[in-house]
């Protein structure tokens, strides 16, 4: 294959990564933005979503589309409830102290991961996609006969992958509508701006926090349900999304939702394209160093504005 079609393929694959990453990262960003909590267990909520998706699809057992549809609803809701419970039993009780919440969420990370290992086991299991037709993509070539269209071998995507991208876009718009147009969104933004003031105005800040933590985890779970037909469910699958979401949230500017989406698209796409040229390990090294250096030298993020 020529370089052109190769890059097109990488871009398509990258768009799927970017879509899923945007959902996961927006959850992390929401939690950090509103609650000022760095949720290290975020990747485990992602993993839990994938594992529950397998479990629901397995239980339903009928047509794959039916099982998948059920998982799409059940998994994020269940994960959201787990997160709400975690917030009320642990985070609330350490009063959302930044350092102690980090330590507590590291604890949650191991609890969720190890309980999954004990119950679900160490195997990776697939979920069947609801639909999955292969779509070949044409490419154009200039030769002495002018432009010619041809179908390079291997240059294809699936209807399911395109659906993932579309679904992610829809959910992101939904999150934006939730934040901008609804009462709970207003409460969240008020709490984000000034917690004390929100308390003074009688906003039930603790309930808002629990809901935000639940929604954040639910978004990660939703992203995982979408990806699990492409990438199998495994108890250790939470590490990469956690790392990538951190990268995205930090580069996008901590707590900034538009910045997070832009950064997710950028990282997702470049991840696909860079891995065409570099080894994935080297790409990860560069990405982690980039994050560290951004935090050191530009803590407001690459797209953020200085507060002063």
């Amino acid at each position: 294959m020529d370089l052109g079609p190769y890059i097109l393929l990488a871009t398509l694959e990258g768009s799927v990564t970017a879509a899923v990453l945007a959902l996961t990262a927006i959850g992390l960003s929401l939690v950090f933005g509103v609650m000022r909590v760095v949720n290290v267990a975020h990747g485990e909520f992602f993993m839990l979503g994938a594992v529950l998706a397998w479990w629901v699809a397995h239980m339903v057992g009928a047509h794959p589309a039916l099982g998948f549809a059920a998982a799409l609803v059940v998994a994020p809701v269940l994960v959201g409830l787990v997160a709400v419970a975690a917030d009320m039993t642990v985070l609330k009780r350490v009063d959302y102290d930044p350092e102690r919440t980090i330590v507590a969420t590291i604890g949650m990370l191991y609890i969720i991961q190890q309980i999954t290992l004990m119950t679900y086991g160490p195997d990776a299991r697939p979920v069947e996609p609801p639909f999955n037709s292969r779509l070949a993509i044409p490419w154009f070539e200039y030769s002495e006969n002018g432009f010619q269209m041809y179908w390079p071998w291997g240059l294809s995507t699936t209807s399911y992958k395109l659906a993932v991208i579309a679904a992610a876009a829809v959910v992101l718009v939904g999150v934006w509508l939730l934040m901008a147009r609804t009462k709970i969104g207003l409460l969240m933004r008020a709490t984000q701006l000034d917690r004390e003031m929100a308390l003074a105005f009688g906003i039930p800040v603790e309930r808002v926090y629990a809901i935000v933590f639940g929604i954040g985890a639910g978004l990660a779970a939703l992203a995982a349900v979408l990806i699990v037909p492409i990438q199998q469910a495994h108890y250790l699958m939470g590490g990469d999304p956690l790392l990538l979401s951190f990268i995205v949230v930090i580069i996008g500017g901590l707590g900034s939702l538009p910045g997070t989406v832009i950064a997710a698209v950028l990282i997702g796409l470049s991840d696909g394209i860079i891995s065409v040229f570099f080894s994935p390990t080297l790409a990860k090294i560069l990405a982690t160093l980039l994050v560290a250096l951004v935090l050191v030298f530009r803590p407001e993020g690459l797209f953020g504005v200085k507060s002063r």
Partner: protein
Amino acid sequence: MSATQKMIALHGGLLGLLFVLQFLLPAYHHGNLARVMVLASYAIGYNIMFGYTGLLSLGHALFFAAGMYGMGLAVNLGGVAPAPALIAGVLAGVVVSAALGLLALRTAGVAFMIVTLMFAQAGYLAVLYFGAYTRGDEGFVIQQAQRIMWGIDLSDPANRYFAAYALFAICLLLSLWVVQRPFGRVLVAIRENEERARMLGYDVFRHKLGAVVLSGTISAAAGAAYGLLFGYVGASFASVQYSIFPLLWVLLGGAGTVLGPFIGTLFMFYLIDLSSGLTSAYMLIAGVALVVLTLFAPQGLAGELRSRIWRWLP
């Protein structure tokens, strides 16, 4: 007894007990305790930064691994003798911690935690990436013939115990000495109220940098010793898990106490040792311990002891 006498009696007593135990313990626990002492030295290093200076690092595996690979690669690739290899490991720790401190100390709080986490992750990935030298995940064994230092075979259990004991004693006494010195007092002052310490005329950045380098160097010495004494160098020692462990040990034992790191390491080592016999999900214990400690005993065992009974505990 005055506070100083009690302090000497307590720490001297622990070192005396550990010395005698090597003649009494059955082989299995003898080997375990040697491991615990080396890991506790790592925790002592961590405690200088976290417990005494209030800098919560999530990337200490970087220092532990710097020491371990500094030593291991010197032996394995350079064919160096154990003593200079240990020094190479410690020096690697000095360099890495100074570099990390200069960068990461420009941030504070949550950003500092994430920056240390990211640098350590980059270090771990670098170990995998340069697999041609490090043998990546698989790691490499340091042969018995390469573990003879000054004619002493460090693979022999008795010698190994004694070497671990020596390392632990040095680290324990060093940390005890440092926290009694003006330098250590300033670190505590920075932990308690950084702005006030600055307004007393202390150069906060330089003190913090000193804490990071001291902490990183002790951690690296522990890493180098671990590789040499137990004969194995592998990427898992550079992973996030090995950054979380010292945090867990210190939290459990009591952050900002000299004995806390040892107590925490001992408890957690045996907890995990016992539970890993029952299930492969032994890290569940670590997770539960982290949550429970954060909720109910943020001061750890020695910290609770200090606030309830022994106010003089350093």
